[in-house]
């Protein structure tokens, strides 16, 4: 079940020996050190890593929002240099446009692409319903709770119909119940309408529930520690003995990275 991070050159997403250091004055902080991983088309990969290990930094590099200090990322053979609509990002700290309503935020991508108003409205409505925010279409982000904002961020990314979804701890601020609901929802949407998903979390149960494959990161300076293929039937039952066994095993590996 375990296999070391051997890279497949024909994979959809290739993260090839990526490293990242932040230079602050004369101090250099090495955050990512030689990260190599590959993601197949329509694969659901969960990146599991401890707090402050550089997960957001990695997502930003994959998205093209930040440049790697070394190595490179390619998607379908094309080098990533800038953010592009084919790679949708759900931010950890929701980066909603505060001057737009929920509706305006969710429909922003289609609007930029020139999707006709009627179709845009329908799509927006669909995704707002999907994340359970019907009735809040006209609210501004400032009036929403943290969890609601996060759901707007998810709807906004989905509504733009990207072929790759990068989700950075999207359920971090949700209460446990909403979190389970959203996990089921994300899994359901993914099963119906396959995409390539890279999902970041520090929650083992969430990782086992969602992942085709889990990439376990080490502490800072961060490298890929381990990979686990999860072959459980979907939708998964997080009380089944197989689930619990996997969860415990990965938990042991996580302990070792501490």
């Amino acid at each position, binding site marked *: 079940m375990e296999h070391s991070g051997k890279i497949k050159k024909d994979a959809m997403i290739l993260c090839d020996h990526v490293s990242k250091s932040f230079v602050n004055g004369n101090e250099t902080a090495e955050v990512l050190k030689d990260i190599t991983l590959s993601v197949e088309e329509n694969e659901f990969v969960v990146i599991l890593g401890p707090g402050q290990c550089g997960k957001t930094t990695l997502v930003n590099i994959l*998205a093209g*929002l930040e440049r790697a200090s070394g190595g490179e990322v390619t998607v379908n053979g094309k080098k990533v240099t*800038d*953010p*592009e*609509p084919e*790679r*949708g*990002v759900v*931010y950890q*700290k929701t*980066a909603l*446009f*505060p*001057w*737009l*309503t929920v509706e305006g935020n969710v429909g*922003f*991508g289609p609007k*930029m*692409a020139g999707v006709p108003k009627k179709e845009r409205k329908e799509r927006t409505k669909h995704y707002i319903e999907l994340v359970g925010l019907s009735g809040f279409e006209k609210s*501004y*982000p*400032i009036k929403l709770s943290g969890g609601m904002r996060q759901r707007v961020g998810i709807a*906004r990314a989905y509504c*733009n119909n990207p072929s790759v979804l990068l989700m950075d701890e999207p359920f971090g601020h949700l209460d446990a119940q909403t979190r389970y609901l959203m996990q089921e929802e994300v899994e359901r949407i993914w099963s119906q309408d396959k995409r390539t998903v890279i999902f970041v979390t520090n929650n083992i149960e969430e990782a086992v529930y969602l992942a085709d494959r889990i990439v376990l990161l080490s502490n800072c300076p961060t490298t890929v520690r381990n990979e686990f293929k999860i072959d459980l039937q979907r939708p998964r039952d997080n009380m089944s003995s197989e689930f619990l066994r996997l969860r415990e095993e990965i938990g042991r590996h996580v302990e070792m990275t501490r």
Partner: protein
Amino acid sequence: MRKKIRFQNTKAETAVYFCASLTGLLLIWYLAVRYTNLNKVMPSPFEVFAFVGSSFVKNIGSRILPFHILASLKRVFVGYFLACIIGIPLGIIMGCSRTGKAVIKPIFELLRPIPGLAWIPLAILWFGIGESSKYFIICVSAIVSIILNSYSGASQVDPILTGAAKMLGARPIQIFFYITLPSSVPQIFAGLQVGLSSSWMAVIAAEMIRASEGAGWIITTGMESGNTVQILSGMISIGLVGLLLASLLRLMERGLCAWNIQGK
């Protein structure tokens, strides 16, 4: 921040404090004039209010008070409007283009410490003592804070939001119209607010130089004829109109920046 403090008091409470403080001021004024030597240089508030009231029907100089105020307002609107249509785009260009900033910023840094009123002599030499020189003075007085605030609004756009817009497929021109502009609106309004009060102050100064009507003219002729009642009437009208203008702009800001206001 400001809103938080405001919303601690209910509207009614705020109104009560407002009236109390005004009544207090008038009372002190009245008592001081009534019981001290101040009455040699100051009229009582009642005289002033009576004068203001009567001047709605009786001419001061060639026209009644509302028309004097309208004359000043017209000058302010022309000068202020010019300042807006020049200042806002200029500030925004400075804020979002590095070249724009490099070219315009040094000139602006040099002009910035010069108060609008220091332009009066040049304005008179260039435009004469007619209306155009007044427009010019008002425009220069208002434009400084308008440029400065538009500039800082446009230059402080959150890079995370521009990144998010790119991620959603916005092209540079779309980023300008859908991200840079709306996110600068609150700052631009702050500049418009300061600019408006600067231009209202500038019109008074401009009218004190040479004019045949206007709120500033009322004060100057009051001084020439030693009429303190007229001077104070002019001053009070200026204060009230200035307050009204600022409130109007704030109302507009509330409408346009609803997204920025916490609370209900």
